[in-house]
């Protein structure tokens, strides 16, 4: 088994990566989508042509079902013709290794020597707090304790639908080291507008240089967060440790630079 996986690794051409079904290089991709077309042979043909245009050879419609008058759901397989050269890709990521709650507390104790103050909220009209609570609440999420549980974090969780002005005012009042904002609703890009406004207020208040700005949400990525002027953005699969470690390291960097 071991031998096989080693030899398998050998065959992978990192300059020409494509999807893997059960044989290297087969390019197998599965798709499902709905077409605004009446179900039947024609819908299948439309799907095949469309999938070909997506760069998938040998399109096979394995299932179709009429959803409503003039709408058809299809499941389609195809072989991807494109490849990606992975050797030229540099992903800006959060480089430090994963630390546990205890390690992070210890790191803060030895490198900063005081508690890190955090203010968190879901701002704007967004009413969702699941993500915010998963990171901040004592209980955390899926066995990962939230920041309230950490000895070296002092957390103010303002909850949902907090106006950006109030959020920033509270952060100034608490002299927060980091501001955590959560955004779940992304319909009509309402989160982009809200986050842009938040950054503007933070800059107007003159605290952008010392406050670490963090945003989280199901549609958030590091790249989008940076584009909006945040220090980091966390998406699905994030646990409190990830956020805690990032804040701790960033604060140490800031304090170093200040000296």
């Amino acid at each position, binding site marked *: 088994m071991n031998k096989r996986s080693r030899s398998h690794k050998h065959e992978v051409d990192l300059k020409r990566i494509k999807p893997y079904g059960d044989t290297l290089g087969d390019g197998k991709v599965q798709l499902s989508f709905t077409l605004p077309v009446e179900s039947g042979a024609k819908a299948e043909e439309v799907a095949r042509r469309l999938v070909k245009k997506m760069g998938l050879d040998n399109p096979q419609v394995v299932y179709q079902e009429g959803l*409503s008058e003039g709408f058809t759901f299809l499941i389609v397989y195809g072989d991807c013709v494109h490849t990606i050269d992975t050797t030229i890709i540099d992903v800006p990521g959060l480089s430090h290794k994963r630390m546990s709650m205890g390690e992070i507390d210890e790191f803060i104790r030895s490198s900063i020597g005081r508690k890190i103050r955090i203010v968190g909220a879901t701002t704007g009209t967004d009413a969702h707090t699941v993500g915010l609570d998963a990171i901040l609440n004592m209980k955390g999420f899926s066995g990962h304790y939230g920041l309230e549980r950490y000895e070296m974090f002092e957390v103010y969780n303002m909850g949902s639908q907090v106006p950006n002005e109030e959020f920033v005012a509270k952060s100034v009042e608490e002299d927060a080291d980091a501001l955590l904002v959560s955004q779940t609703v992304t319909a009509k890009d309402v989160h982009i507008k809200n986050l842009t406004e938040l950054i503007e207020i933070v800059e107007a208040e003159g605290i952008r240089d010392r406050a670490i700005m963090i945003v989280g949400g199901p549609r958030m990525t590091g790249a989008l967060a940076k584009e909006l002027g945040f220090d980091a953005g966390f998406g699905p699969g994030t646990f409190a440790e990830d956020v805690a470690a990032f804040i701790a390291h960033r604060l140490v960097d800031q304090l170093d630079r200040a000296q």
Partner: protein
Amino acid sequence: MTGKLNLDHTAVEHARDVARSIADEVHHFVQDHTTTAIERTICRLLGIDGTDASDIPYPNILVNQLHEAGVLEEGAAFLIGNALANDLKNPQKVAEEAAAGNLDITKLPINDQESIREALAPFVAEGMRRIKNNKFERQRMISELGEGPQPYLYVIVATGNIYEDAVQAVAAVEQGADIIAVIRSTGQSLLDYVPYGPTTEGFGGTFATQENFRIMREALDEAGEKAGRYIRLCNYCSGLCMPEIAVMGAFERLDVMLNDALYGILFRDINMQRTIIDQHFSRVINGFAGVIINTGEDNYLTTADAYEEAHTVLASQFINEQLALLAGIPEKQMGLGHAFEMDPNLENGFLYELAQAQLSREIFPQATLKYMPPTKYMTGNIFRGHVQNALFNVASIWTSQGIQLLGMLTEALHTPFMSDRYLSIENAKYVFNNMRSIGEETYFKEGGIIQTRAKQVLAEATELLQEIRRNGLFESLQMGVFAGVKRPTNGGKGLEGVVNKGRNHLNPFEELMCEGGEEDE
């Protein structure tokens, strides 16, 4: 009841008694107060509709005038009735003239109660008639068309555009949905007025307006006619306009309403006094209109742990049942809420879910229980999500739930695609059909995991209810007994809209609805 859980009847009735005394105390407080939202509701029931040139609804203009003049405590019915007794034509005219600044109804000579009631009578009768007619129309359609078997398949549309919502809803009906809920635009619960007219722009949902209700009702009646079963329409009777949404729903024949003050307090930071008072009249209307209310206990588990905090759900169901009874809501119109939200990695988690669902079923045997799908542990792995939803469907059919809010495999990713809804309806239909009689065919092991768990949850819920009775509901909410959220009695939004009822205050609709609710059954 021939229970599977071997519950101790006296223990259940004891818990119910404790909940009743909690609800009674709340009700005393409620009866002494009215709110801006309740008075606006009375305006609407009297036939006041429409907005002024700057889009402010007439009920808001009139009630704000009363509030500013410091006479809200006398109530809109009394003052409008008095205006009518002073020879004004009708309530709509009163509102329009007052809005235009041509009339100040707080300055008119006061007539005696009897002539005020007499002046109001035809408009009160008309408001009641509209609601009754809708109730009869629903009954007629159900007896003619029939309806889907329980658990009703409940899906959500949320495009922000009512016309697009209607397309999605009709597709869902064709695939088998029994209830269509139109999710409201984010933030509507915090608006202290109801928007007017058809809307095509919303955030994460569509504004609840009376015209949007009408548009969707028409689309569903047509789709139901075609599908050969009555399709229920659901919206959200919560937030700062609770009773107003109730009356709009009653006028447009909505069938199901989310209707829970505790939800607004905990998750929308709405002032608890305001919304508990509002809730009562909204429930009186929903009860009278034949609307099934849905309570929001399931939401507690999105922030608190579903295994550890299961008893808070049961305790809240007990309280909600008693508050609903005080508003005249028949048991079968009570969609008490709960959810399938335990961590999927929990060993035997499904057995605990089964215990909880069966517990709700046996304790509230007549209720049309509303069962909510997994959301908290939906990860973006849509394939596993689809399996989680299948287990949720199994628990539901096994324990005879009333309303099945279908889980979407793309939960936490985006508002449902048309195909997501199709896949979830297919999933539920497969499970429900394939396991239809599983509940009648099985017993739970005496003293086994499920029975033991159910007993434990009941005991913990009873203990919590006793604690809430000791401290009172308001004080308990301040201490954070539900969902781990603490709310101050005087905090949150909307307290400025609460007043003590004055000597002349009257609400002719509440009087009639509370009397008439029973005889129509």
